[in-house]
């Protein structure tokens, strides 16, 4: 069974495709995968990658390469909310490790795992997200949360459906 791209995803791909010269549709792969991952609650499957390849008239391997290269794409099933705690230098100096430890024990998983109820995916490792001035920080479903305390983290995580 091949996967059918939704109207929204197709619009999104067309939007990005139009921004690149003709014949450079390969440049729209990243945006296409983002759109699909968003719709698919946080990860992309091989069938979906095939659908992107077919839509953009590319060999499938070229889509697989992109999807596996970038850490913002998940190629295995994960929890629907993506929680990425920055552990790079500024955040580390400001206590990121404690935040990670807190979240891990709160959710009962380690980084790179998802909760059993499929609610939260705790990203394996997150590098500097360019919000050092608000360290320590984490990104939840594309949204930045800065100057974190463990209480705030609890509140944010508990608020996820």
């Amino acid at each position, binding site marked *: 069974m091949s996967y059918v791209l939704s109207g929204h995803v197709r619009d999104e791909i067309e939007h990005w495709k139009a921004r690149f010269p003709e014949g450079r549709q390969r440049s729209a792969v990243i945006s296409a995968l983002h759109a699909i991952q968003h719709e698919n609650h946080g990860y992309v499957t*091989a069938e979906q990658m095939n659908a992107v390849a077919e839509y953009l008239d590319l060999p*499938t*391997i*070229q889509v697989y*390469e992109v999807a596996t290269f970038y850490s913002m794409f998940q190629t295995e099933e994960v929890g629907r909310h993506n929680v990425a705690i920055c552990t790079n230098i500024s955040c580390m100096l400001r206590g990121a490790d404690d935040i990670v430890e807190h979240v891990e024990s709160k959710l009962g998983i380690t980084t790179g795992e998802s909760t059993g109820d499929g609610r939260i995916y705790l990203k394996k490792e997150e590098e500097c997200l360019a919000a050092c001035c608000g360290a320590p920080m984490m990104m939840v479903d594309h949204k930045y949360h800065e100057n974190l305390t463990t209480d705030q983290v609890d509140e944010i995580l508990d608020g996820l459906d």
Partner: protein
Amino acid sequence: MSDDIVNIEVDGEAVEARRGQMLIEVTDAVGAYVPRFCYHDKLSVAANCRMCLVEVEKVPKPMPACATPVGEGMKVFTKSPKAIAAQKATMEFLLINHPLDCPICDQGGECELQDLAIGYGRDVSRYNDGKRVVKDKDIGPLVSTDMTRCIHCTRCVRFGEEITGKPQLGTTDRGENMKIGTYVEQSVDHELSANIIDLCPVGALNNKPYRYSARAWEMAQHATVSPHDCVGSNLYAHVLRGTVKRIVPRANESINESWIADRDRYSYEAIYSGDRLMRPRVKENGAWRDVDWEGALAQAADVLKSADQDKVALIATPAVTVEEGHLLSQIADHLGTANIDHRVGRRDVSDQDNDPMYPSLGCSIAEIEQHDAILVAGSNVRAEAPIIAHRLRKAAVAGAAISFANSSVYEYLFDVANYLSGAGLVELLAGVAVAAADGNSLPDSVTELCDGVTASGAHKDVARSLAEADRAIVLLGNIAGRHASYTAVRALAAAIAELTGASFGGLSEGPNSAGACLAGVLPHRAQGGENRVTAGLDVASMLAQAMDAVVLVNVEPDADIHAATDAVARLAEQAFVVALTPFVSDALLEAADLLLPTGTFAETSGTYVNVEGTWQSFSGVASAVGEARPTWKVLRVLGNLVDAPGFDYVTSVDVRDEFVARLGEISTSNAYEASGRIAKVNGADAPANDIDIPLYSVDALVRRATALQLTDEAQRARAVSDG
């Protein structure tokens, strides 16, 4: 011009180079060796292995020779302490994750990594941490994988992108997790796919059927020529104590470059197939029994001698060598018969008097890519001649307009200008001919064929692209050659070429259609193309009449004969059928009365003339299997036994030399002149079921090569033919 030349210095020597050339091309040309892994002269520059670092004066860091264009006054040092230090440092890094399992690696002894590690590696590793391990992939029956050995040069990836146009291997993940693979398990299948074995500089991609069966240094390397298509790709056979262990390409820029088709590489498996006929056999009262060679040959000679001369038939295939053809046609002459033919695939011989002296491409193989427009008609060219298909792809990538006219649609891995299909070949070509005439008069031969035909937009596009090109050619393929109305097809294609100013040529069947024609393995022409006084019978007519004796020379009647239907049953009805054959099959057991075991291409010497007219001789590379004898020797003895004069050749070279001395001037002209107006084909335009022969069914060898038969391609073809 002088603007394009720059003067540089390589290791103190003044050298001229072309502006923009990469340093490594210049150092290679002057013989200043620079180590490399990722660079390959047939692939784009990736510059990712860094093994080729050299010192360039006034440049602070060592530069990759494969990706550094030359500039005026550049001074390059390939062996300075700085260059060597950089090369050694790269080597050390490359070996960090390499398993160093050379003792159990098939590549050992012929490995670029091993060689360079000896030249540039440290003798003791400074690396004490864990090495990465990469899971092996199953990429099909032809190529084995040991991916932990991979050094990520990406030659195999670029091969898929640039040479075949079907990228299946890629680099997934990144950093330490980066790996070469297909991501989703699939077999890497393209008719040239196994060339990645030779490209891979390490032991990551290897020859699967050959795996662990010999060591590079114990085998002898012998040159030979591919027997599977009209290209005649140059090969090396690697032979261990008389047994062919594997086949690799022998580079020849003007024919196969550095590539060979997968069937050229793996068909050797058939030499050792269980189907080999091990000794002569005779059928008596319906039962087969083994006989000795002497008795078998005497019986064959008796049958031939006592046959009525009009009732002797000699049938070969386009795989007959020049030498075999020469002997065969002399035997026919001596017996007084002209019933001799090699055109087992040709249904329509009505126009044979207008055939060229031998079928030719109309240009050299290398010239294909210099055309701006090409029309390929009646051809599944990727299956018929993979190397020609590759040249067509190169032309397309360089911007040529390649169009096809085929009843069926085949996949091509490049941008096709126009694909005419959905009708019979005659109908498609008539449309293009009308478009090409563009209101002017058509050659008289095709006026009736084009009567009432109107040209569609696509027909016009094709005609225009041929007419407007500086250099254009119309090529007919094997499907055209097997067409029931080949006369009409050829006349139309020739008319299109004439009207558009294109040249005209085609692919021929098997490795030696050209040589067989020259040798007179034809009912209407004697050696050298002379018309025979009385033409003999073509294949279909021979089978349709009652013969006293039929000789089949390496013909599998069930699979090779397309010129006639029910060939096996018709042969079975003949009085006596002698089959010279390497293989025994149910069909041969039914059709023949006497089986004489002959050697395959590997067990015989001979000569093929390819489709561009290049003569290529080869010697036998392997020991004979069972009591098989080279076909030319069997024919020599048979000739002697029927008292043909002059059959005292000692070697196949004597046979060839005699033939060449007798052969007058060879006309390479493809000019086609019809004998008159060709009648409408009325229904004979529908493609026959067996008109398109799949990639791995083309000949007796390929059909018996296990690895090829396991490919997805072969399985797909079987599924289609089974219904």
